């Protein structure tokens, strides 16, 4: 194969193909800057008006051994001219910066997909690091693909040569070379990235210049090489009119919390302890001291929740954030908040488990932990975000429920949502829903004050210290209803247990009915929750487009379930519940509704691909497990 690497041949006029969308994965060493490249491609595509969805996938180690398979960091983005719900399954193109990146990712590339490799990093040493006996570029592994080999390292060094950087510094610019090339291939503007370089490296002009040159060199390389038969274009999507920005899950959650705090007039107090993949919420909220936000990096997960409960007792919006292992540590504190009936939010950004598990990978396996993982009968409302931007709404809704019913509320997200990004239509801040909160004063309360007197939904009053004549003591011992005094009376304990359960059940009166996307009755209902929303939506629409009677119901509240859920489930011949766990929602649904739901489960630390869902659903349609 003859490759022009000189870069000074005349630009070739090339046909431009318009595509409805493209899925691109950038893979390299964890130090190669793939996440940055991916973020730039995402932002640029969003600015170009595409709908976008991303899936960053990185190792748990900050700098895993160079060149190894364990050290591969990937970033996948789908951009499209139509509405999309996932970062895509099959890749249209894969950029592999080294053999380890190639070997761990190439199976996801579609046949005839474009495989761009950095040829310079396929030396004997690189192959050994990736535990490869043979150069994959010399095997038929790459046969099905359009392979484009580019000596990126030497080209980048050449592009920045005049600047007198060290080899190491020059090699750091390689990701910008790759970026320039990808941007050329998909007809993306370089301008937003040039602005980014200015903002990020402005203080180090020679690095800024080097990155700019590498970016341009990548673009120029595309223009001059004859290896690409055409370039591609993805037109703007028909999104609802409005002003948009890209938003990541943890950022949207942080902004949702901030908004809930403002809308309720309750100062936000976050007690948190660093843990992947939740720490970004602590980082994000720590930036908003100008909103009066107080963030408290506690000594451990336990102190994190306990400090938030202390803040709640004092009348603040107490929040704690963590992931599975940290949530396990918080459970005793959460039990106390349930007993004391104080409003607060506990946020679980799920990751692969058990134990330390897969800290940077996604899973939905904390559902039963958060619903049941405490001593005693200790019910709590549980809600789950379905996508990055949805986190914004979920945070507000959860706080509204917490304050209305005087209960802690659990919010579930996961690593896939937390780090994924999508366009978000910026709301008009003045039209956001207020969240009314009331603290009684002594003139509106008859003496003696009864801290456990209840309203129509069984909520008790949120009387806070500093209020004259409403002094009261709360704690973890069983309370007498009304007075809140310690009580060991058997009938009172039964009554209080029932009351706490009924109070949480009352959430169903506020959250509305379960809605169905698709026919009201039919052959198959897909029931999903959390981060599988996008893949399930895409799969069900695809099957309906093929003429199947498939509907999709996505649960926003996992405890309690919407009031009409049992009735919805019975309208379909089969119910299938895809989950990234071993069947946790399925267990709840079967026990609660006696519906023989079918599971489709995966725990590989990866989200569902649409095609695996479609395949499974198709087979259920042609060979039903249960005949009605």
């Amino acid at each position, binding site marked *: 194969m003859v490759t022009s690497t000189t870069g000074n041949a005349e630009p070739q006029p090339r046909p431009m193909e318009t595509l409805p969308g493209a899925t691109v994965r950038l893979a390299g060493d964890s130090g190669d800057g793939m996440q940055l490249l991916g973020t730039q491609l995402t932002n640029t595509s969003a600015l170009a008006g595409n709908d976008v969805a991303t899936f960053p996938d990185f190792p748990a180690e900050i700098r895993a051994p160079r060149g190894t398979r364990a050290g591969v960091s990937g970033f996948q983005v789908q951009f499209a001219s139509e509405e999309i719900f996932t970062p895509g399954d099959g890749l249209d193109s894969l950029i592999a910066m080294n053999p380890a990146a190639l070997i761990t990712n190439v199976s996801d590339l579609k046949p005839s997909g474009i495989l761009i490799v950095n040829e310079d990093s396929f030396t004997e040493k690189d192959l050994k690091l990736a535990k490869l006996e043979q150069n994959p570029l010399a095997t038929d592994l790459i046969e099905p693909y359009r392979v484009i080999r580019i000596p990126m390292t030497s080209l980048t060094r050449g592009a920045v040569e005049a600047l007198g950087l060290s080899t190491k510094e020059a090699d750091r610019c390689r990701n910008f070379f790759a970026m320039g090339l990808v941007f050329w291939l998909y007809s993306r503007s370089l301008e937003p990235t040039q602005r980014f370089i200015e903002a990020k490296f402005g203080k180090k002009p020679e690095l800024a210049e080097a990155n700019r040159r590498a970016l341009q060199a990548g673009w120029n390389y595309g223009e001059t090489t004859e290896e690409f038969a055409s370039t591609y274009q993805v037109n703007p999507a028909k999104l609802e009119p409005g002003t948009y920005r890209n938003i990541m899950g943890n950022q949207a959650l942080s902004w949702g919390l901030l908004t809930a705090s403002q809308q309720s007039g309750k100062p936000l107090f976050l007690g948190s302890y660093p843990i992947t993949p939740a720490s970004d919420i602590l980082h994000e909220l720590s930036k908003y*001291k100008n909103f009066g936000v107080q963030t408290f990096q506690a000594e451990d997960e336990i102190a994190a929740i306990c400090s938030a409960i202390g803040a709640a007792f004092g009348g603040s919006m107490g929040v704690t954030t963590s992931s599975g292992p940290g949530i396990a540590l918080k459970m005793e504190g959460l039990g106390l908040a349930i007993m004391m009936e104080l409003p607060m939010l506990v946020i679980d950004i799920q990751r692969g488990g058990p134990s330390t598990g897969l800290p940077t990978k996604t899973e939905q396996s904390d559902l039963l932990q958060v619903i049941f993982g405490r001593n005693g009968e200790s019910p709590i409302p549980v809600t789950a975000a379905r996508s990055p931007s949805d986190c914004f709404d979920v945070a507000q809704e959860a706080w509204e429920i917490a304050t209305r019913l005087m209960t802690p509320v659990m919010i579930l997200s996961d690593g896939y949502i937390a780090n994924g990004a999508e366009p978000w239509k910026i709301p008009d801040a003045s039209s956001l829903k207020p969240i009314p909160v009331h603290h009684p004063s002594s003139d509106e309360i008859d003496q003696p004050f009864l801290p456990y007197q209840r309203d129509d939904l069984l909520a008790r009053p949120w009387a806070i210290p500093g209020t004259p004549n409403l002094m009261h003591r709360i704690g973890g011992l069983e309370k007498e209803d009304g007075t809140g005094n310690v009580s060991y009376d058997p009938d009172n304990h039964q009554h209080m247990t029932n009351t706490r359960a009924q109070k949480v059940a009352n959430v169903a009166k506020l959250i509305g009915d379960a809605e169905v996307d698709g026919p009201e009755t039919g052959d198959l209902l897909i029931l999903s929750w959390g981060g599988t929303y996008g893949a399930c939506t895409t799969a069900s629409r695809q099957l309906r487009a093929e003429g199947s009677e498939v509907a999709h119901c996505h649960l926003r509240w996992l405890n309690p379930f919407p009031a009409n859920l049992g009735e919805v489930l019975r309208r379909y011949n089969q119910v299938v519940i895809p989950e990234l766990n071993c069947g946790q929602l399925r267990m709840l649904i079967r026990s609660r509704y006696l519906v023989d739901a079918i599971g489709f489960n995966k725990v590989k630390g990866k989200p569902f691909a649409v095609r695996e869902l479609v395949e499974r659903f198709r087979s259920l349609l042609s060979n039903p497990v249960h005949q009605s």
Partner: protein
Amino acid sequence: MNPTLPVLKASDFGSDQDVRWCPGCGDYSILAQMKKVLPELGVARENLVFVSGIGCSSRFPYYMNTYGMHSIHGRAPAFASGLKITRPDLTVFVITGDGDALSIGGNHLMHCIRRNVDLNIIMFNNSIYGLTKGQYSPTSPQGHVTKSTPVGSLDFPLSPLSVALGAEATFVARSIDFNTKHLGATLLRAAQHKGTSFVEVFQNCNVFNDGAWSYVTDRGTKDDHTLVLEHGQPMIFGKDRDKGIRLNGLIPEVVNLSDTNVDDLLFHNEQTDSPHVAFTLSRMHHPEYPVPIGVFRSVERPTYEKQVGEQIEAIQASKGVGDLQQLFKSGETWTVSE
């Protein structure tokens, strides 16, 4: 005292709940002294909060007619920190015991103290687990025979005040349940200090560890076994005030005043920045030494919650108060038109 406040009496601070400690327990005396000194503090009842953990001592909040939280084992400093950071206007006490504070809650205690959150931590030290019926605690002497250590405990005990000083405490004191006058005065000093106050109170558990502190409570011997610390005063003790403490290099020694000049004694200075002498005092144990009581250390350092407030104010002053719409629109945005 704030003149607009109604004058309160000790009885105003009692709740309507029956006190359920064992008869003769040292906790009664601490409760009585607390109620007695609170009126002197001049804080309205609704602005007082008692937060406790788990154990006999931790029932304390139920008996106070103030706001209160009986929380979970060992975590009271964490609840109280969240409360005080968000509500610096409140006066917050943490009531805890030796097991609660030093065993299950050791981590929270240490970090709360180093942050200098303005909390008054009163630790009832009875050197035993009372509520769970008599297991040895982190302050029980080695060899202590209990239900869980029938042939004697193996662990070496720790000294609570050394722990507090090691954690950078700004206020450290010790008193004794039955030394009521001293106890009341010490509680008041603790409450008046800005920052974390850590007070160890020797408390007799007459059911499971009776007489653990008899050497400092028995009428006949207490004066010979106790060193009452007074700021600016030489360290003199004994029934006849005939003994003193002198430093020999870095080591304290007991000397007879008959052959030692008072000027050669160690003079107590609770306000020195360096905690070294306070630490040395915290290492003086019975029977080698008289046990010091009183305020070991009382120094000024900004409180955590005050600094939290100052950071917020400074940023609001320089950046302006946060605006949601501006935040949503920050960074790169694009517009889709009809």
